[in-house]
């Protein structure tokens, strides 16, 4: 009934319009121009509607049809445009419903037949998990000293390259250890470790959040926080992973880091893992940092929402031994509103009057440094890493820092040793000057060493080596003089600069570099000769070129001082170093001489 009603109304309108047109044509005959186009259009439209409605009426005959028809009828309401909109939407919904699934990344997916897959599998040869050591690199393994007995300043016996060095009369002076305060030899620390091992065993048996936290862990966190004048501390099972876990916990895609060009390997890897955008500033170059921050400012001002920004640098640089220009960095980060991330692995326990690191050295409150990470494996004579800062920052790490959540906790005796080491550093503080006696000893001997090394009487040493580290650093970096390196045609830097120039680490690890190998070997010759001649064990910077993502500085000869070094040791060291340097370098004056060392490398 209803449908026929619709039809009847429309048919009447159609007929009325048609009759009107016909009437006009009939009445005015040939005098009139042909009817306007709109009228013709209307006729066509109406005819279409007529047929459309006819089809709609058929709906009545299928089950459920009357309901739809009733809906359509009541929705028409004399407003065709509105109905059209609804019909279009309905039809669109239907087409959307019946369109088949479309893969987003279809173009990137390569389809292989099963035969091709088999072929590819057969062709595939797995790369070795560890690259084979090539002939030219074997000496590096052999040159690692093996210490018999306790690792301390006065060594009884060491083995390098199957040669045993032990002198009955005189001990071997160890200038290779990074135990700057020589706490390894401290009886109280040994006792503390022993008691803790007897009480709790050697392992913590789980991640910190899962049965891995014992009383000593909580104590050492409190001790570290108190020692470094910060709110809270968190400890990690290993120092290398500390940066790699802390940085990604706070930085992600779109966040910005402004980083010193010379940061150590752990921080490099941490930055890569974090996926943050990186801008590099030249090593300790505050003008360059200022320039970069100024250039970034207009971009960052428009940024919405505001992302995290960090300045990342090291306290005492592991690669070059110099000290960060902290006062200027703090000034810049406050001016441009950045946070500061500082790796104090080497500076805590070596710098500052009570060993509180670079912040104390420059008399800057620890609160200025948002995140401080450090290592317990150097001056604290223990193992593991830590991070100190405000409570909320530390608390965030307890559930979102990968190494803390998923990795085994620090062995309890290591934690105990750190607490004890902090106690030892703190307890002999001179009440008048506020200086720790242990630190004063270290600083005095460091000072004396720099004076002795830079004396003009060491003609040979001055001729071939530059001291590149800061005069406060107990880790003294000696680098071959640039003029001498030029004579040997050694490059200014090794590795690649892809990370610096493109912001993305190179796809391939650095290849074996023969010049780097030769330069390292040259330094090893110095180490070996001074060990045979004067019973002094030095070391050199041991960088694995393949793992470095930043340009690598030339290898350095390292003299690691410790609190138990005496002035006479230094005098002897400098004297014999001067002689040894002469006897080795007098024969190597051109690139050819250097390359001729290759045979010696192979026969090492």
């Amino acid at each position, binding site marked *: 009934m209803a449908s026929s009603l619709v039809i009847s109304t429309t048919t009447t309108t159609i007929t009325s319009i048609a009759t009107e047109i016909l009437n006009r044509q009939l009445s005015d005959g040939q005098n009139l121009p042909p009817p306007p186009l709109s009228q013709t259009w209307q006729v066509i439209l109406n005819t279409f509607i007529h047929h459309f409605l006819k089809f709609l009426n058929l709906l009545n005959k299928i089950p459920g049809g009357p309901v739809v028809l009733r*809906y359509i009828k009541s*929705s028409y309401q004399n*407003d065709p445009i*509105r109905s059209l909109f*609804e019909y279009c*939407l*309905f039809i*669109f*919904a239907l087409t*959307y419903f019946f369109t088949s*699934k*479309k893969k987003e*990344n279809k173009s990137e997916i390569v389809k292989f037949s099963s035969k091709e897959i088999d072929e590819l599998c057969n062709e595939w040869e797995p790369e070795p998990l560890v690259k084979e050591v*090539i002939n*030219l690199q074997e000496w590096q393994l052999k040159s690692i000293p093996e210490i018999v007995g306790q690792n301390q300043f006065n060594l009884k016996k060491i083995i390098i390259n199957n040669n045993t060095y032990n002198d009955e009369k005189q001990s071997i002076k160890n200038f290779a250890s990074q135990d700057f305060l020589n706490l390894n030899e401290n009886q109280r620390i040994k006792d503390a470790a022993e008691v803790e091992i007897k009480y709790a065993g050697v392992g913590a048996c789980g991640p910190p959040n899962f049965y891995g936290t014992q009383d000593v862990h909580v104590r050492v966190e409190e001790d570290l926080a108190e020692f470094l004048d910060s709110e809270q501390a968190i400890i990690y099972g290993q120092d290398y992973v500390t940066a790699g876990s802390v940085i*990604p916990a706070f930085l992600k*895609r*779109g966040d*910005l880091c402004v980083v010193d060009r010379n940061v150590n390997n752990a921080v490099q890897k941490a930055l890569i893992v*974090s*996926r943050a955008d990186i*801008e*590099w500033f*030249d090593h300790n*170059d505050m003008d*360059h940092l200022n320039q*970069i921050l100024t250039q*970034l400012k207009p*971009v*960052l001002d428009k*940024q*919405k929402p505001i*992302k995290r920004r960090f300045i990342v640098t090291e306290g005492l640089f592991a690669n070059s031994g110099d000290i960060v220009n902290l006062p200027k960095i703090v000034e810049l980060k406050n001016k441009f509103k950045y946070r500061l991330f500082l790796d104090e692995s080497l500076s805590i326990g070596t710098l500052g009057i009570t060993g509180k690191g670079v912040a104390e050295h420059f008399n800057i409150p620890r609160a200025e440094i948002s995140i401080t990470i450090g290592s317990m494996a150097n001056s604290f004579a223990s193992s593991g890493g830590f991070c100190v800062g405000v409570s909320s920052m530390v608390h965030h790490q307890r559930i*979102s820092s990968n190494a803390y959540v998923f990795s085994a906790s620090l062995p309890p005796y290591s934690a105990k040793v750190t607490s004890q080491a902090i106690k030892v550093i703190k307890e002999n503080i001179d009440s008048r000057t506020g200086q720790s006696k242990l630190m004063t000893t270290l600083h005095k001997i460091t000072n004396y060493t720099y004076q002795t090394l830079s004396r003009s009487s060491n003609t040979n040493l001055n001729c071939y080596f530059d001291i590149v580290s800061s005069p406060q650093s107990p880790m003294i970096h000696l680098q071959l003089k640039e003029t001498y390196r030029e004579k040997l*045609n*050694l*490059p*200014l*830097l090794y590795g*690649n*600069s892809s990370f*610096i120039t*493109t*912001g*993305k680490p*190179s*796809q*391939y690890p650095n*290849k*074996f*570099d*023969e*010049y780097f190998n030769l330069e390292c070997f040259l330094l090893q010759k110095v180490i070996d000769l001074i060990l045979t001649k004067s019973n002094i064990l030095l070391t050199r910077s041991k960088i694995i070129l393949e793992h470095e993502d930043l*340009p690598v500085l030339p290898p350095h000869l390292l003299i690691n001082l410790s609190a138990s070094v005496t002035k006479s040791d230094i005098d002897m060291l400098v004297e014999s170093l001067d002689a040894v340097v002469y006897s080795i370098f007098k024969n190597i004056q051109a*690139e*050819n001489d250097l*390359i001729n060392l*290759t*045979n010696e490398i*192979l026969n090492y």
Partner: protein
Amino acid sequence: MSLSPNSRDYLSPDINSSSQYIRRNSNIENINQPSNLQSSSQHARKNSINGDLTPTPSHQPAHTITRPRRSSSIIQHLEPDTIDTKIDQALNPNLNANWVNQKGAWLIHIIIIIILKIFYNFLNILNNDWKWTMTNLTYNIGSYIMFHQVKGTPFEFNSGAYDNLTMWEQIDNGDQYTPTKKFLMIVPIGLFLISTHYSNYNLNLFLLNGLSCLCVVIPKLAIAHRLRVTLY
């Protein structure tokens, strides 16, 4: 506008950096042999092609200058994800978008609509037309905010790999015409048809319902995928 990770092309093959080793080490093909290095002028002290492997390559920050400028047009496409981003997206299941595929998540749309209608039924100041319109409007605004307004994920598990994508774009990894997307598309259309019907085709209410429906339908279209409209 922002330092988005996509603004830097991580995919571009890094020819310079890899070739610099080849050049430097070209004369030591077989390094296991005793050295055949020659003292020669081929080996330059600056061991890279661009000379950038020097202590200070230039006093220019590399990226602020090379970072491409954003176009100023109102409508623009997001740049395609880099390989790094895709790897990060694949590392963990996207918990933010995956729950939408559950049957319960489908049902909850219907339930929410019914609850909304019941809620508005209690507001006696509204007549029936307005009750339906309000139900439709509330659902559309809510789903717009949820699916098309908020970007990224509430919890961090992909190093920000989804930070630029709305939830609709994250669903099914951006595949189109999947069952869930079909369902989510049909719900607002159906609700619109029903609510105009019961609001007795009042023209103003019809406009309100229609526009709000379009607001949630258009962003769901395949052509609107990864499209950003910036009005200010």
